[in-house]
Structures are given as C-alpha cells and as structure tokens.
C-alpha cells in the first residue's frame, strides 16, 4: 500500500503539462473560439422576479435585417407545453428547459425569455429591444419565511410537498421534506447538563468563477453537430442538449474548452441548447457569451439557508444529542442541496442520538447550482458555531472538545454506513500542534476553530492510453481539468509504467474519443479518473509483457515488469518500454490501454480550519490575520495542487463568511450583479493561508487518494464566524459578518 512503497513521481511537485499554454495565453477558453460564418446569439431576460407572460411578440425583431433566428420555449421539440400538461415529461427535463427559456411564467429577475441570433453582437443587442413582452406581475417570494407562509404566492401550481407521510392536496413552495434519525434525541437531551440551541441564516452566494459562461455551436443537418463550451462535464452537456432537442448522442460532439473556474456552477446547461436551436434555424454557427451581470442574475448561485441547531452535552464534554432543522432555498425550481446538508451536518461527531429534518423551498431567485460540497457549508456552519459555544460554556478547549467526540473508523453515520478509516482525529491533532494554534492572540483579536466533512464520490470514468512506436504515449481522458488534474493523471501513469513524465501527454478529449465520463465534481477526478488511468496502464503493462515474451519466445508468466522495462526471468534479457513499442508492429500491432470504470469506495474527507481575526470596533470591519487549513487527502498526488484546493476553498469560505451576498430590492431585483459590489476576496484582503496535508490512505484507491476539492469550503464559515464572535464577545448567527451587521451587534450590546 502507498505507505510502504517509495514513489518516483507521486507526491512530487511537478510542472503541470498544460502550464505552458496557460502562462502564455495560448490556452483556449470558452469565449476564445471563432468559426467561419459565425453569428452572435443574445438573450432577452425578465425585468420581473415573478410574473405571467401575457404577450410575447417577436415579429419586429424577426423583421430586423440582421436577425437570422429566434428561439423560445416552444422550440424544445421534446418539451412542449402539451406534453408538459399531460405530464408525460419527467419534471427534471421540463424544469431544465423552463429555466433556460421561460415557459409561460418568469420566476426570477434575469430569467431567460427568448433568444435571437444576428449577424453582429451589436445588432443582436439592438434587436432584443424590438421584442414586445407584456406581463402580469405577481408578488415576488424572496425568502424562506415568505415562501413557507400560508399566504405566500405559489411559484408552481403543480408542486406538492414530497416526503411527508401523505402528500398534501394543496400546492406549496415546499418541494420536499427529508428526515434522518438515529437513537432517541429526547432521551439524549434528558441526559444533557448543557444544551445550546440557536437559529442561523446564510445568504445567497455565487461560485464567482472568473470566466463567464460561453459557447460556440454548429448544427449540422447531415453530420455531427458540435458544441464548444467551458463545462465541468461535456458528456452531460451532450446528454442534456440531445434530450432537449431530440437528438441522438452520436449526432452531437461536445468539446470541453479550457474552463475558467466552475466550483459546481458549470455542471449544468444554460446557453448550449439555446445556441443549438438558433444555429439549426439560422444554418450558421452561433456564439453566445454571458455578460458578468447575466452570470450573477441567471446562472446557478448557491442556496441561502435558515437553520435551527440544538446540541446537548454532559459537563465532562461528552455529546449526548444533536438536532437540526435545515431550510434551503432551491431558487425558482426544486432541487436545493438539502439532502447532502442533512447528511453532513453532524457527521464529524460520534454521537448516539441525532435527529435532522430538511426542507427544499422554492423562491423567486435563480435556480441554484452546485457549489463545492453543495449543502454542507450552510449546515455545518450552524452546527460548528453551536459546538464552539458549547465548548466555551463547558470551558473546554474547542479542539479537545471535538477530539473527545470525533467521528472515527466504525462510527455509525446518521446517513447510513459506518465510517471506514478517516482522518478527523489526525486533523484535529495537527491543528492543536500547528504554529497558528501555538501563537498567542494579540489585543482585540479573536480565534475560531471549525471542522468540516464531505463525502466525495467515485463514478464513471473512461480512459484510453495510446502508445507510440517511440515509447511516448497519449492519455485520453474525459474529465475537464478545473484545478490541475492533468498533472496528477500524468504522474500516476508515469508511476505505473515506470517512464519519465514528459513521455506522456494527458489530453481532455471531446465526447467522441473516449466513452462516457461523469462530470468533474464531487471531488471525484483524481480519485476515479485516476483509477481509470491506473487500470489503463495495467492493461498496457500486460500487453508489453506479452510482446516482450513474444520477442524472447517465452510465456508472459516468464516476464516481469520492473521500472519501465520487461525482464525475462528465464534469461538475462531486458527490453525498455520504448524498445517493446518499437517492435509492436512485429508483435501484433500497436498498443493501447483502456480503463472504463464505475469507481466505488470514494474516501470521505474531513478538514479542520483555524482562523484569527482583528475586528475594528468603530466600523465593524473584520480583517483575517492568520489562517490555517488542515485536511485529510488520503494521499496527495501533487501536493502543490492539493494545497491549492485547501487554500481556494478557504478563500471562498472566508468571502462567504465576511462580505459575499446577493442583495435584492423589494421587487426581487439583485442590486449587486457585478464584481464591484459582489465582493469576493482580493489579494490584499487575505493573509497567506497556511496548509497541513494529513494523509490517512483510502484503502479503495491504488495510491490511497481521497477527493480534496470540496471539503475545504466547509469549515471556513464557522471558523471565521466564531473568530469574529470571539473577538467581539457576542454571538454570530447570520452571515455575512459584514461591517454594518457587526457594528450593529456592537452598538446594540453597548445599549
């Protein structure tokens, strides 16, 4: 297993294979492709948060000399209103279609209504003004409280709460309810010496990837239609587009461009199917690029949440009961990450009695999309804030308190299985001995500690490795690389084959050159696609041995593969990989390896973050002065990019905790749809974020890898929130801890 073995490349800080193109500006991203004869598509969006479309007349726009095509909801052949009415369509597909081109009703400000394509970008923008729309404006439902109140306007007349003992007969804005329990919480709380119960809220936030959504498509009547776009999953872009347009998968090729950040936000479609309709009608390639404002208003932000947490402990620090009610905003269509929220909220703790309920609530905001460990940050923020308050009341060090109750191998999780070997205890111990935790706080500073959990997933990955006669090889993978995963694929393959890194080129290929790959998400790529790469390499090694055996006229069993060479156990002979490839022609043709898997055994990962802040009591402004992110990687293939995931998750979490939030006016219009007023952290806002990589191997992976991409965004909300609370000596319950909110707390406390 990885502990024992000495590696040549695994664990080294190699130069990423795609690096040269990225530092020279040669790498091509979503908006960088232009096709001959290309025209420009633009979208008309709703000026209302909630309204019925009473008139939609595009005739004037169609008459514009430069306009070549118009697209609206009715243009989705497989999802037309009639089928919708007869309920023949699965609601997921209808919701997807209705989100990218509104069907009868607009459900959020910025909701796409109709698209058109014109000869120039300017003409397209101009022609949008010619579209005549009339609305019957309805009251916007902008919060969970408003959505679940009895007199709330209902977004979907056909939505009846799922997950109740019996499904209600009256439509509501609550899409579903979920409940998980183990033991008996009431009995648990009865044993408690101390109980803390509080309500929390978190705002709507955005992933904030720097590259706006963009696509260039070409519909081909007789051949293969093509889509170029930045996505975390081009196979799923193909599937969605094909279903919405009634195409066969084989008629559609999707190429994943380089992707300028995703974080979960580029796991669905907004532009691609619409552009395909326009291209089909116009008979020309169509390019569409969202403005930054469109990205904020009409892509998929992360759920706002409200929660109530109750935790009980004995005086000796033993937790006896944990209870949570979690409400998540789904946006305009059902499907918030309420489920994972319920499943993760208390997972860091080994406690007998737990009870959790969750609600998926629709509101007049953009339909949410995944955002790094979707659902977990909101829930674990609330739980960890209460944990720290309990530690304070019990006068126990917050790390010791967590160590005393930490989940470990064999812990029965609330969501089902018992945990295998996990690294929470190791992370807590590393936190305790970290330089930051040993550093005394200065006057006016506060410190916060928080733990975090995320599952990580496996799933389908397909890899082909083609060897060349000179012993070089090409790794064809289908997992879009959002953080440097090509480097880890190259390293794992070089390790398996025993040849130098630069002999292998990893390529994220289009949907035609490898079989289906699940979307890059759930921290699955280095784990699952890495396993597929290892399998493909083992396939190649078997062939290499057979070819060498053929040359030596011995059986494969008499050949061993050592450090990139075939060794003849029957004699002294040795052939390098290059030498075997050179004679492939003589020994049965060229050599390719294949690894098509559905990976199981993803390793859950835990993280612990430490945050020190300084709060200006006159203005309520918080500065993060020290920060340490500690997380179990299982095995870090490329430590530099593993640290990068920890630091990036921490930075996004700090933004979520301090300044990021969607600000809406009374009509449900987002007022800060730009990077000027949606304030993501700047270089000058952050200290250097220290990292500690803990390695408790995942026994299901050949190198012990766990996913590392998502867990790092889970602890920061409570680490920062608790640090601010500690600095001002007041409880924090609502994010973000923006200056006006913190100042208000201080002023109220003074009175």
């Amino acid at each position, binding site marked *: 297993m990885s502990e024992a073995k000495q590696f040549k490349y695994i664990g080294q*800080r190699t*130069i*990423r294979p*795609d*690096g*040269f193109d*990225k*530092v*020279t*500006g*040669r*790498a*091509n*991203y979503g*908006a*960088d492709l*232009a096709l001959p004869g290309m025209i420009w598509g633009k979208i008309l969006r709703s000026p209302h948060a909630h309204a019925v479309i009473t008139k939609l007349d595009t005739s004037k726009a169609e008459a514009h000399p430069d306009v070549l095509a118009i697209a609206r909801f009715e243009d989705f052949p497989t999802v037309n209103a009639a089928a919708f009415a007869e309920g023949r369509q699965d609601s997921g597909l209808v919701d997807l279609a209705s989100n990218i081109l509104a069907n009868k009703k607009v459900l959020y400000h910025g909701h796409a209504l109709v698209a058109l394509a014109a000869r120039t970008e300017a003409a397209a923008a101009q022609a949008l003004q010619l579209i005549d729309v009339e609305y019957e404006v309805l009251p916007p439902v902008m919060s969970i409280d408003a959505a679940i109140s009895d007199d709330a306007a209902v977004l979907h007349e056909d939505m009846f709460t799922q997950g109740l003992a019996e499904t209600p007969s009256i439509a509501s804005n609550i899409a579903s309810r979920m409940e998980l329990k183990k033991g008996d919480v009431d009995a648990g709380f009865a044993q408690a010496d101390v109980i803390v119960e509080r309500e929390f809220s978190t705002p709507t936030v955005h*992933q*904030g*990837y*720097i*590259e*706006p959504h963009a696509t260039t498509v070409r519909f081909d009547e007789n051949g293969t239609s093509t889509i170029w776009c930045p996505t975390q999953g081009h196979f799923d872009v193909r599937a969605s587009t094909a279903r919405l347009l009634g195409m066969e998968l084989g008629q559609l090729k999707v190429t994943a461009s*380089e*992707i*300028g*950040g*995703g*974080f979960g936000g580029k796991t669905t479609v907004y532009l691609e199917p619409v552009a395909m309709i326009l291209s089909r009608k116009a008979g020309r390639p169509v390019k569409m690029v969202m*403005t*930054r404002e469109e990205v904020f208003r009409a892509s998929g932000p992360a759920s706002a949440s409200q929660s109530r947490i109750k935790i009980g402990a004995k005086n000796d620090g033993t937790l006896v009961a944990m209870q949570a009610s979690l409400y998540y905003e789904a946006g305009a269509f059902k499907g918030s990450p309420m489920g994972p929220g319920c499943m993760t909220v208390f997972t860091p703790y080994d406690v007998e009695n737990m009870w959790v309920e969750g609600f998926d609530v629709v509101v007049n905001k953009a339909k949410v999309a995944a955002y790094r460990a979707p659902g977990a940050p909101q829930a674990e923020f609330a739980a960890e804030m209460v944990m720290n308050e309990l530690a304070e009341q019990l006068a126990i060090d917050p790390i010791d308190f967590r160590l005393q109750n930490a989940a470990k191998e064999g812990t029965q999780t609330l969501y089902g299985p018992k945990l295998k070997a996990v690294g929470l205890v190791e992370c807590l111990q590393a936190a305790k001995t970290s330089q930051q935790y040993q550093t005394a706080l200065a006057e006016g500073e506060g410190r916060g500690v928080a733990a975090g959990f995320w599952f990580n997933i496996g799933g389908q990955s397909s890899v082909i490795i083609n060897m060349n006669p000179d012993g070089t090889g090409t790794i064809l993978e289908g997992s879009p690389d*959002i*953080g*440097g995963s090509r480097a880890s694929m190259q390293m794992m393959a070089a390790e398996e084959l025993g040849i130098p890194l630069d002999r292998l080129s990893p390529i994220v290929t289009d949907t035609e050159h490898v079989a289906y790959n699940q979307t890059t998400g759930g921290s699955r790529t280095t784990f699952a696609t890495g396993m597929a790469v290892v399998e493909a390499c083992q396939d190649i090694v078997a062939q290499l041995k057979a070819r060498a055996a053929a040359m030596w006229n011995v059986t494969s069993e008499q050949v061993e593969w050592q450090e990139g060479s075939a060794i003849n156990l029957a004699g002294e002979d040795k052939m390098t990989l290059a030498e075997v490839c050179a004679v492939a022609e003589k020994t049965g043709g060229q050599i390719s390896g294949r690894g098509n898997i559905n990976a199981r055994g993803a390793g859950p990962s835990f993280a612990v973050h430490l945050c020190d802040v300084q709060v200006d009591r006159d203005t309520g402004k918080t500065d993060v002065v020290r920060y340490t992110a500690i997380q179990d990687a299982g095995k870090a293939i*490329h430590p*530099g*990019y593993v*640290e*990068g995931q920890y*630091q*990036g998750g*921490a*930075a*996004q979490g700090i933004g979520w905790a301090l300044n990021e939030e969607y600000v809406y006016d009374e009509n449900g219009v987002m007022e800060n749809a*730009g*990077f*000027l007023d949606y304030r*993501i*952290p*700047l*270089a*000058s*806002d*952050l200290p*250097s*974020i220290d990292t500690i990589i803990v390695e408790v191997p995942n026994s299901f992976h050949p190198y012990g890898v766990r996913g590392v991409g998502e867990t790092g965004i889970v602890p920061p909300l409570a680490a920062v929130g608790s640090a601010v609370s500690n600095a001002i000596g007041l409880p924090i319950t609502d994010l973000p801890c923006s200056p006006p909110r913190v100042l208000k707390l201080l002023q109220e406390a003074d009175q």
Partner: protein
Amino acid sequence: MKTHVTTSINDETVEFLCEPQQTLLHVLRNELGLTGTKEGCGSGDCGACSVTVNDRLVCSCLVLAVEADGAKIGTIEGVANSDKLHVIQEKYLEHAALQCGICTPGLIVSTKALLEENPNPTEAEARYFLAGNLCRCTGYDKIIKAVMDSAESLRQGA
C-alpha cells in the same frame, strides 16, 4: 464609420479598422485574434484583461481601441520570448500559482508591471498592487509566493 488605427502590439506594427465605441479588449480578442487577454467582467473590476498601454498597466476593457493609435500595446502574448518563458511565467508554474488559469495572463502582465515599477516589493505591496486581479481558485497565497520569488530572481539578474 470605422476608424483606421496604426499601433504597436508586442513591438510589432499592427493596423486595424474599428468602430469608435469598440474597446481595445474587443479588438484584441475578436478582430486581431489575440485571445490570451481574457474578459471576466467588462467593467474594470477583475483585471483578466490587463495589458500595458505605453508601458502603463490598464484594463483593456476600459480603453477605446481608437486610443491605441500611435501607442505601444503590451499583451500576454508578448511576455515570453517565443518559446522561452519569462521568469515570472516560470515561477507561476513552479509555485503552482494557477489552477483554472483564466486570471493568469492578466496576473502575469500585472506582476511584470509591478516588478518593473518596484523590483523589491514587500508582500503587502504586492498584494495591494495586484488587488485588481481577481483569482477565485487559489486564495492568492501561491501567486504571491511566485511574485516574491520572481522579484528575487529578477534582482539577481536571472
């Protein structure tokens, strides 16, 4: 009416026609095919479109293309000397200072401008100078390490 513009881009004379309201970013990307300069916001808030105009760092989304007439433009495509990377580019790679890479061209152009103006910046000076270059992937730590390391190498005449 289109205007004829003669300018210098990465020390090569370039001529183009543009509408007076077109931005330099638009012309670089859509007319001249220099797509290394990225667009993240179109309002000067993200720095992905950073270029130099007469050796001064600017956002090309906030410059009219017609203003380039007679000026000297520097873009990411001009930072490396053909296939020989600039020290700053090498340091970004060594320090794993990029993940998705969309902000990287702008950051490298800005880092170059910083170090030409201030060869020995403190970490705080570097962080403030680069505050206009948003990166959502890295948390900036490795970027700043790459910048400080680049400064060091350049001072030693690397």
